Every structure is written in C-alpha cells, then in structure tokens.
C-alpha cells in the first residue's frame, strides 16, 4: 500500500459516498415507482454488473488493473456480500409497508448498521483490523444518530 492517507480525507470520502447513496435511493426509487421494488433492485444489480464489467475491462485494457486480481482465493463467506445486500432489499421492502413505514425502517436500519459496525470493529470480525471504539467515537456516534433521528422523524416529511 502507498503512503497512508490522512484520516480527514478518508472521512470526507465516506461522507461524499453518502451523497452518492442519496442519488442511488432517488433513482432506484424512480424505478420502483415505475415497476416494482424487487424489479428495481434486480435492475440495479444487473446494470451494476454490466457497468462493473465495462469499467474493469477498460482499466485492464489501459494497463491500470491487474487482471489477476479480478478473482483470487478468499474464504467462501467473503463472496456473499451480494447475498447480504439482497436480503436487505427483501426485508426493507416488507417493513416500509408495515406500521414502521419509511421513517421507522430507516431509523432502525441506521441503528442496525452502527451496532453491527461497532461489533465488527470491537472483535475484528471478518478478517478486518480490530479497532475498539473510544469516547470520542461514541460522542460522534450519539450526535450523528440523534441528528439523523431528528431528520427522519421531522414532522411534515
């Protein structure tokens, strides 16, 4: 790996990817409205597969990516991220139509993401580095989840 990048830049990139997620939710929501939620997710994965293949082909052709790194030995479970993502789609498409509605689904989903992220860091699960949370991590967590709850449950939205 090259020089370690400064943490603030990495945090800014992660924040920006949340903006990308907002656009994805908007566009995939347009597809779900025109057809069905299940088809919207299926189309996103299908077109994503095509886009990823095109991007990898272009990078390999330009000598910017080693084709030997497209598939290399890894534990069987490491290949199941797409399964986990598909399960999310199926679960949330049920709960948004329950009494929880979109706001409750979003809020509980954010909580689930953060709780599981903390457990992953605490125990170094999935071969990722151990990184127990400290007091400042928890302060940031409380502020961000409280702010998110205010937005998600804001009246009139």
């Amino acid at each position, binding site marked *: 790996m090259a020089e370690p990048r400064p943490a603030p830049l990495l945090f800014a990139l992660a924040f920006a990817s*949340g903006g990308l997620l907002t656009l994805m939710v908007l566009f995939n929501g347009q597809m779900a409205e025109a057809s069905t939620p299940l088809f919207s997710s*299926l189309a996103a994965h299908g077109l994503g597969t095509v886009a990823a293949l095109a991007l*990898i082909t272009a990078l390999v052709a330009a000598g910017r990516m080693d084709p030997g790194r497209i598939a290399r030995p890894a534990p069987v479970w*490491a290949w199941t*991220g797409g399964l986990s993502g598909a399960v999310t789609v199926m679960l949330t498409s049920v709960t948004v139509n329950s009494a929880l509605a979109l706001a409750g689904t979003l809020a509980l989903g954010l909580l689930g993401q953060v709780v599981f992220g903390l457990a992953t860091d605490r125990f170094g699960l999935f071969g990722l580095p151990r990184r127990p949370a400290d007091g400042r991590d928890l302060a940031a967590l409380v502020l961000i989840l409280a*702010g998110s709850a205010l937005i998600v449950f804001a009246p009139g939205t």
Partner: protein
Amino acid sequence: MAIFILMAFVGGVCVSLSRALNGRLSLATSPLAASLWNHVVGLAVLAAAATALAGGIGGPLALALDRAPATAWIGGPLGVIFVASGSWLISRIGAANTALMVIAGQMVSGVALDLLRGLPVDLPASGAGVALIVAGTWIAQSRRG
C-alpha cells in the same frame, strides 16, 4: 409489530455485514472486483427471488421500459462506485466510522436534495439534525490527525 422491528434492524445489520464481507473480499482481490462480485451474486439471488415469489420479471420490465425516466437506470452503475468505495474504506477507517460517515453524508445530502426539489422540509427539525450531524462528523474525523 416486534417482527417488523426486528426485520428493519436486521436489514441495517445486513448493510454493514455486506460492507464487511466485500471489504474482506477486496483485500484478496480489489475494491472494484469485490463490487463486481457483490453485484453478480445479488443479481442471482434477486433473479431467483423474482422467479419464485413474483412470477418473473417480464411484467415489471415492460412497465419500466414504458414509464421509467432515464435517471432510473443509473442507480445500479452508481452503486458499483458506492460498493467499491465502502470496501476500500472499511479496512482504513473501520466499520463503525464508515457506516457513520455514510449515514451522515446520506442524511445531509438528503435534506439538501429535498430542498432543491422543492419538497416540504421541516426546517427547524432538519436544520438542528444537520447541525448535530456536522458536529459529530467533525469530532469523528478530527480524532486522528
């Protein structure tokens, strides 16, 4: 009701689980390759689900071709970059920080998008929410210099 609460929570757990699994796969391959496999596997699972539970995709595909705006077709390609970036970041800033920063960015940009689209926004509540999120983001990123 309890079952729906559990399902929504597990839905969130699966978001972080997916990012951790893709992060592990990207250590062996590359973030873009992990994103490719994430989409291939997800496509296979959802195609099986659509066939078994929803009677195939012919009907919804016809509806989508007829009614969906052009932007509805680019959510998937944007997702390739999103999944690759999550796989790359998780081993560098940790799973909880990645999840928190993505959530922070999603919430703040969501409010901005609603304002831009002229949708009703509860300004006192959403403004206070954005302020708390920005404060939390500042604390999170200033931890290591």
